[in-house]
């Protein structure tokens, strides 16, 4: 097991030592279920698919993912273990990646635990499982983008609450960018190129593109770029903290 593997494992296991993991998973599943069945009128639509379920994911992630990410660096800064971690033979980039991947793996587990919904639609009808799989993958990649934002802001402060609020705020901006309300606000006076750019930079529209079931390369590239950008900022912030 390499250096990154060791850090990854520690981070991942830590989620399950503390109650955080269980609280998070329960809230995630409860909210996912409630939103899908009540707000999303899962049964009334009379269609066997998970469209309403996935439609709520950006909103779920908006609050829940920053909660997972907030402790990644803030806690290390607060307790002082960041000094321990960064004086072990590991580069900042390796530490940032290992922590991010651990949090992402944890989100993947939470997401995978929604499988009873998938079983339900398959029991009720004959959904297009290819579309569902694509949606799951899209959702996971989108979660990665939210996580990268959260990890980055976690490195900015030793206060987890501040890290959470800032991350949620930035996630909100990235999320609502693609909603009709925001786009309508620009329609009429802003050039259509600007509107298209805003829409194309939002998590929602890119997620919708993947969730349609066709592998949308530009959406994948988009999320990968967001992740890379914020993880790079994360590395810079940690190095700045050291160079302070």
């Amino acid at each position: 097991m390499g250096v990154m593997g060791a850090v990854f494992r520690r981070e991942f296991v830590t989620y399950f030592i503390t109650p955080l993991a269980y609280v998070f998973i329960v809230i995630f599943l409860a909210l996912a279920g409630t939103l899908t069945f009540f707000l999303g009128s899962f049964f009334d639509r009379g269609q066997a698919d998970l469209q309403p379920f996935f439609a709520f994911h950006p909103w779920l992630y908006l609050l829940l993912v920053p909660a997972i990410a907030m402790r990644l660096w803030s806690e290390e800064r607060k307790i002082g273990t960041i000094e321990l971690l960064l004086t072990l033979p590991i580069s900042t980039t390796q530490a940032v990646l290992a922590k991010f991947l651990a949090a992402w793996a944890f989100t993947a587990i939470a997401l995978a635990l929604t499988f009873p919904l998938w079983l339900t639609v398959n029991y009720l009808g004959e959904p297009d499982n290819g579309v569902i799989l694509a949606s799951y993958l899209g959702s996971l990649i989108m979660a990665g983008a939210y996580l990268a934002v959260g990890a980055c802001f976690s490195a900015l402060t030793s206060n987890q609450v501040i890290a959470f609020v800032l991350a949620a705020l930035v996630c909100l901006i990235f999320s609502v960018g693609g909603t009709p309300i925001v786009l309508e606000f620009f329609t009429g006076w802003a050039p259509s190129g600007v509107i298209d750019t805003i829409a194309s930079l939002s998590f929602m529209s890119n997620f919708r593109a993947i969730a349609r079931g066709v592998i949308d390369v530009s959406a994948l590239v988009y999320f990968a770029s967001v992740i890379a950008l914020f993880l790079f900022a994360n590395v810079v912030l940690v190095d700045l903290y050291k160079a302070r």
Partner: protein
Amino acid sequence: MIEIDRLCKRFGAIVAVDDVSFSVARGEVLGFLGPNGAGKSTAMKIVAGFLTPDSGRAAVCGLDVAEHPIEIKRRLGYMPEGAPSYNEMTPVTFLGFIASVRGFSGKEKRRAVDRAAEMTRLGEVLNQPIETLSRGYKRRVGLAQALLHDPEVLVLDEPTDGLDPNQKHEMRTLIRDMAPEKAILISTHILEEVGAVCTRAVIIARGRIVADGTPGELEARSPNHNAVFISAPAQTLRTLAPILRELDGVAEVAVGDNSLCARPREGCDIHDEIQVLVRQRNMLVSEIRLERGQLDDVFRAVTTGGALTGTAGAETAED
């Protein structure tokens, strides 16, 4: 093994480390002394590669810390101030994690963890969450972490802070036992530590080195070094004081209620002379004692900027 050359580091307006240079060789235990806020931790963080200096250079095992950060971290065992560790883990999982990051696996890893746990006597608490441990045990976990890979160079920031006298004694014994094969840098603001474990001491105040020498040399810089201390009835002291003041070697005589202290002129030995004199005159004294000089006095004098009498070999960094 550790070389620090003209290191400077400031935090905004605060100059934490100001032109500090020293080196630690194998077999040496260098005590880094100074009042709180003197800049000890900052200098140690730079050696450990956690902070980047504004100017100057730190090297470990001949490698520049800035140029080979990963390599020096491999060679160095570092316990940060307060011995931080992951509270939700147990000592065994924590040390296992450190071992994995340091590249141990399988049987080797178990051996390294066992060895570190044994050296620091973590036995009974190995499977107890670190957050439930007493301060002394937490400190030992921090030390075990630093020792795990049997590094040639150890940097320990206040290893005995917050320990009870027995634990302090154990910690010092451990450090002394390891000393011959390693270069060890420890910081402390407890002076008794210096005589107990250090082969050399560097005193730092407001970021600058104000004294550097062996514990003996530093003691020799005390104004009370080689002073003669006499306890006797007040009557006797009144007769004795003027006689002592007449002696060539005596610089100063201070008389208290039931005691007297005669400080020698630089380089003079007045103890024997006074003893003979007191015996010849059949004076009734309960005690005649030669003062070696207290490190406390030296420490207070150099860290509060006061002038020192006596200059036994140690240099100051004033320029």
